[in-house]
């Protein structure tokens, strides 16, 4: 039965479309209720502590003004990076938001996954790119009508074609058992350096080009003669994910971000 299912995938499909859907139907209202309760509680606490909060915020504002003056150089650099990357992919590809409703759900969640409240009826099919405004999160692994499981970028089984944004060094990024990312197949003579940003190269066809993925943290001579050993850290904090964006295939649907107005 296992080999028959591995060949045809019928049982996997049945389980996805029933079991995953049941989980979605149960957890979506629970998460919705939790969000409302958390929001109400926050508002209540804010009301109770409003005077103290005001004083603290005023002090913080003064401090922030001073920091903002000092950080003008950083702001300029950030603007340059934003111009460079621009998350153009979000303008080119229609995207829709999804709420994370569970992380590594159940005893068989061996892979680093999370569950979202959008399924194939919303456009989340296997392989759909999942991102946030900060960078790549992963891709959809399996989907039921209204729920989907997303494989995280940090899973050792995840593969994505990337390119560094300064030296234009190509490589394949993978997750690892630790929290870091590894960049495979980087040529020994590549000029990649720690601190360089890694962006999607678009070579794999599913992720559009130019989405930030991670920052190079370490470059070492590899055990093999041909390739360097490159480590990186993801830009997205995978432990604090609440909402994500799923990128649809190009279509006539309006994009999430309006196209920037062209001068003249």
């Amino acid at each position, binding site marked *: 039965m296992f080999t028959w*299912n591995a060949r045809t995938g019928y049982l996997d499909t049945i389980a996805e479309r029933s*079991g995953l859907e049941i989980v979605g139907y149960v957890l979506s209202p629970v998460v919705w209720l939790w969000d409302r309760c958390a929001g109400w509680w926050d508002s209540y606490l804010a009301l109770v502590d409003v005077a103290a909060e005001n004083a603290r915020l005023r002090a913080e504002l003064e401090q922030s003004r001073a920091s903002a003056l000092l950080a003008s150089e950083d702001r300029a650099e950030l603007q340059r990076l934003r111009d460079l990357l621009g998350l153009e992919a979000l303008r080119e590809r229609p995207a829709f938001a999804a709420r994370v409703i569970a992380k590594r759900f159940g005893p068989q969640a061996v892979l680093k996954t999370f569950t979202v409240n959008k399924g194939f009826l919303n456009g989340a099919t296997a392989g759909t790119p999942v991102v946030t405004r900060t960078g790549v999160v992963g891709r959809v692994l399996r989907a039921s009508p209204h729920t989907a499981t997303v494989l995280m970028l940090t899973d050792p089984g995840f593969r994505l074609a990337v390119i560094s944004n300064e030296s234009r060094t190509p490589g394949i990024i993978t997750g690892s058992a630790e929290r870091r990312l590894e960049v495979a197949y980087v040529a020994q003579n590549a000029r990649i350096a720690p601190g360089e940003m890694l962006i999607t190269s678009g070579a794999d066809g599913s992720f559009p080009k130019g989405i930030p993925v991670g920052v190079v943290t370490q470059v070492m001579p590899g055990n093999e003669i041909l390739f360097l050993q490159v480590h990186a850290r993801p830009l997205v904090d995978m432990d604090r994910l609440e909402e994500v964006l799923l990128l649809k295939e190009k279509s006539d649907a309006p994009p999430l971000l309006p196209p920037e107005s062209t001068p003249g």
Partner: protein
Amino acid sequence: MKKLYRLFWWFLYTTGAVVVQQLIPGVDALMPGFLLALQENRPRQLMLLFVVFTLVQEGAGSLGFGTAMLSYAGAALLFRMSHGFFVEDNIVFISMLSACLGLYHCLLIRLMCAIQTIPVDYELLVKESLIQTLAIPLIWVPAHLARPKNAAATP
């Protein structure tokens, strides 16, 4: 009417177990319910729960189909092999069974990952198997107490 109540009870249990699984990653909160169904020995109820629980775990998990089925089938086999020696609705029996199920979970996941060539984080697997061992009696006790007294099948 009793049938409808039983069905409603299992609906509530499954909903609660799914929420527990969301709160504690890697735990099978449906397993204590399956053990309760084994104790009650109603073949149709047991078969229905086996199918539903298997579909939930297989559908939401990230391994190929078969792991949850083997997990519940193994639990049933362990239960049948050992229930003749112990009082089956006793917490000591359930604790011993859950220890065996924790070990079985560890071995099963390792086997299924090897078949599907998926790298395993052994430290996390052992940790979650231990949590599973502790979770089964902790969920089983309130579920057992909340079960209607006449739920067991008459011999």
